């Protein structure tokens, strides 16, 4: 699948990349994308995308875990009530421990799923022109749509090492 048409500039410095992003967005480029080896805060800030909404999947996941834990411990104990050590069939303190573990387990597994789902979109080939150096030591800024010429200029101005059109 072809990459969406746009202009790609590569930067060596997070600061420069950040500058470029800001310039492009100021220049009316709505869709500016970045690829970088590490989540450089200044760049992330420049892009200014809202915080991930993973919370709203992970947290319920944990709750589900909690409920599973309760169902498992209480339910199975009542399924065949055997008295041990004169303690009640549903003895809360020990169950809490197991419930906690189950909560953590299911919670973090949903977190994993949520993350995979979240990162899938940004990992598609057409989302960003593949270039290995962006996993290594360069930061790629990709302006989608708009006037390519303006994009190139803005990128150069903000100190891109290379600039090229894609798609």
């Amino acid at each position, binding site marked *: 699948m072809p990459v969406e048409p746009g202009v790609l500039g590569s930067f060596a410095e997070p600061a420069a990349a950040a500058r470029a992003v800001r310039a492009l967005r100021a220049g009316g480029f709505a869709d500016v994308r970045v690829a970088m080896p590490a989540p450089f805060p200044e760049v992330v800030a420049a892009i200014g995308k809202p915080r991930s909404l993973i919370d709203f999947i992970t947290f319920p996941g944990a709750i589900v875990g909690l409920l599973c834990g309760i169902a498992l411990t209480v339910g199975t104990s009542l399924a*065949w009530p*055997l*008295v*041990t*050590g*004169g*303690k*009640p069939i549903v003895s809360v303190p020990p169950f809490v421990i197991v419930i906690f573990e189950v909560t953590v387990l299911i919670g973090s597994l949903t977190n994993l799923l949520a993350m995979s789902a979240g990162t899938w979109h940004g990992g598609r080939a057409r989302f960003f022109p593949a270039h290995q150096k962006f996993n290594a030591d360069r930061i790629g800024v990709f302006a989608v749509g708009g006037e390519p010429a303006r994009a190139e200029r803005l990128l150069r101005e903000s100190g891109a090492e290379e600039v090229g059109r894609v798609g």
Partner: protein
Amino acid sequence: MTDPSEKALGRRTFLRIAGALGVVAGCSPKAATQKVIPFLVPPDDIVPGTPLYYRTVCRECPAGCGVTARTREGRAVKLEGNPEDPIGRGALCARGQAGIQALYAPDRFKGPMRRGADGRLAPVGWDEAEDALSKALVAAREKGPGAIRMVTRPEPGSAGAFQEAFMRAVGGAAEDRLVLDPFDPAPLRAAGEALFSRTEIPVYDLTRARSIVSFGADFLETWLSPVEYARQLAEGRGRVGEDRTRLTWVSPRLSLTGYSADGWLRARAGGELAVALGLLRWLADPANGVPGLAPEARALFPRLAALDPAELSRRAGVPWAGIERLGRELALRRPSALLGPGQSSQGPDATQLAAVIMLLNVALGNLWQTVYYGLDPQEDPPSPFAEVESLVADMAAGRVQVLLVHHADPAGTLPAALRAGEALGKVPLVVSFGDRPDPTTSRAHLVLPDHHALEAWGDVTPRLGVVNLCQPAMTPLADTRAAGQVLLEVGAKLPFPAAHFPWPDFYDYTQTRAQMYAMVALGKFPDLMAIQRDALQRGGYWSYQLPARKEMPDLLRGAAERFLSLPPSPPPEGGDLDLVVFPTVLRGDGRGADLPWRREVPDTVSSLSWIPWAELSPATARRLGVATGDRVSVTTSAGRAELQAYVYPGLRDDAVALPLGGPEALAVLPPVRDGGSGAIAFRSARAAVARAGRGKPLPILEGSPYQHGREIVRTVSAAAPALRRPDLSHLMYREPEHPTHRWGMAIDLDRCTGCQACVVACFAENNVPVMGPEAASQGRYMGWIRMERYLGDEPGGELEVNLLPMLCQQCTNAPCEPVCPVYATYHTAEGLNAQVYNRCVGTRYCSNNCPYKVRTFNWRDAQFPKPLQMQLNPDVTVRSKGVMEKCTFCVQRIRYAENQARDEGRPVRDGEIVPACAQTCPAQAIAFGDLHDPGSRVSRLAGEKRGFGALEELNTRPAITYLARVREKEEP
């Protein structure tokens, strides 16, 4: 011709087949195709999977207790006392319980054998064997009198009578048949002879005695009739205060019997006589004004006055004050019973000791109160030891051509100094009727294996008015024959008309005798047959009662005097320590002492199993540089033995003690006799002890024998009759409820003697595996009950022995339960702590968390070498490796009784459910029942002021209540 028992019980042969029907627990679960083989003709008294009981007699010792054999699908699986038998009254000792293992012993002879040219025993046909014997007898008879001899254990009944008849028939004199009992209490007989011209063993009724003094007589272990006397002592126990029977133990060593004593007079070995004389002197002394003293005794004082108290106390090794104290007690507490001598005190002056003790009984008026003559049936009493010696001499001199050995082991149970073994080698033909290898059969040329008592007919008369009947509980396992039957058949082959007996077979002989007994009871029943059937079902003919006081034997004139002087003290030679040899419950006289249970179960005193040991007092051990477990050599004038040492505070510093029942003790016994009776003087030698290096790890149970101030086993006294118990009212959880029953147990520590009968019974009932000496030394003993024996509070502190039979406490709040991850153990609705073997994965957490450490783990698969597996109880799973197990209160018995009750549509009766341990306890120290039922015996006991729970401060709420041992302060 076939064995009569088979003819009489032909039906039983089918039971073997029935065995295939019952799903026998223990065999590996295979889904593979199994065959089910039906009966040809169904036996009318058998329902597969349900028990069938036969009454018979225990032949492990001469006491002759009646037993009930429980059989399943035609194989005996458990022995229990016969409740109707006046001797045992339903109880059985440890040895009796283990008797069944002799039946299934893997090394039991499969059939008759003959020693070939190569010196090895080879199987041979019965006819051939009997021919050989008869020919030999004919030849031997030519050699004149005394060429044919017989050695037998006491056989007070058909077997004995028939042997006598046989020996007469082959032209033998009465003394050609020798009755051998290594523990023969001959001195008692001799003393009776001398004092009252009654050559009898006295019979005691300890129930009425308020004070008992035993001069080394282990009447709770092996002496005369231990089960009976344990019960009688127990009847005087279990109450606080005046009317509780006091027991004083006079001996250099605190034995198991001594553990039940309230006072221990540490007389030096041989000092018992001095103590007895001292007592007699003090009592007879008019200055002490003892009331109601028999005039005969008073008359003796002039002679007694000659005895110097200082000398007496020196020879006794105890302060005169101690003797006076005891005298005062005896003067106050009437009637009393003075017992002795026993093996450990049977020295060169045993008869004098026996006589003085009897004089004390006379003086205190105990005769016909607690001590009785006229009850010894005098059936087949052991022969005087002189005859044993002359037989050995004759054998050594080659004057004996044929020696018939019947369940006696001269080579293995007599002091080595007698050289009986060598002498046997000089006999051309030694014929053994023994059914298992022992030192004598290993020297036999012809082995004609006898039935086990559980396979044979017969009768035993242990007491006047007591005839206990033997009947087969199962078909013989091997090609064995009743010894009497063999003699009968051999007789028929002999050319002497006298030897052609009128009876078609031995069974008929026993029946003709049975009729004789039946006559007595005639009138109560329409006909003899009915009487005999009834007697067979109940187990015997009993008209036993203590004789009324009238036939009083008066003291022979001048008989007493010659016993009243101290014999010269023996020269201190052979070593610096007195040698004390003592019998133990489990080892007995050595016959059958190799049976797995008898070796696996630890001796209560030393907590050692499997091996013999040498006891030394801590001080002596320190002096010799010996620690528990070291090898020591014990040397006397007679010989040398090397054993591992056990340091034991319950022994005088001037003594070393060895258990009887094995070659070690016999090796060091010098050939000394009791002057009066000629009996073996077990107590005569002095021994030198030296360290001989480090020993292998001991197969010992005890970790620390001290309570370290923890008040685990508690005691009460008249001063403080009630126990302070922790307040456990503040509970975190509601106690689980028990809708139907709450099974519980009460164990009276004031009655418990630590005799280990319960332990062996548990092994038998619950398929508890025997793991061997290595396992024992590694702490992997599998017994569900263990006898915890504490010697006091701190090492070196005051010696106060407390026993605590420890088994699963069936806690209400059991710490073992919540820690099991898989619910393999939990609390049942009837208050039991269930252990489900097939669910257990073996984390061992339950055992770690059990404060009583009563759970045993199967470290490896248990071995039940054939045919021992036939003894396994089909109602109990045989546990596999990796599984935790423990006492279940014999749940299979609980369920059986509940099932019976359901069938009869009635509630379970109190006392109907009896766990194996409670059932066999001679002292009846264990009570079991429903704690919900306020009327039940266990509820009453559990409510007693002496009651306490083990480690109850942990709030485990045990279902077992221990009743504290009563410890009275020494009376002023």
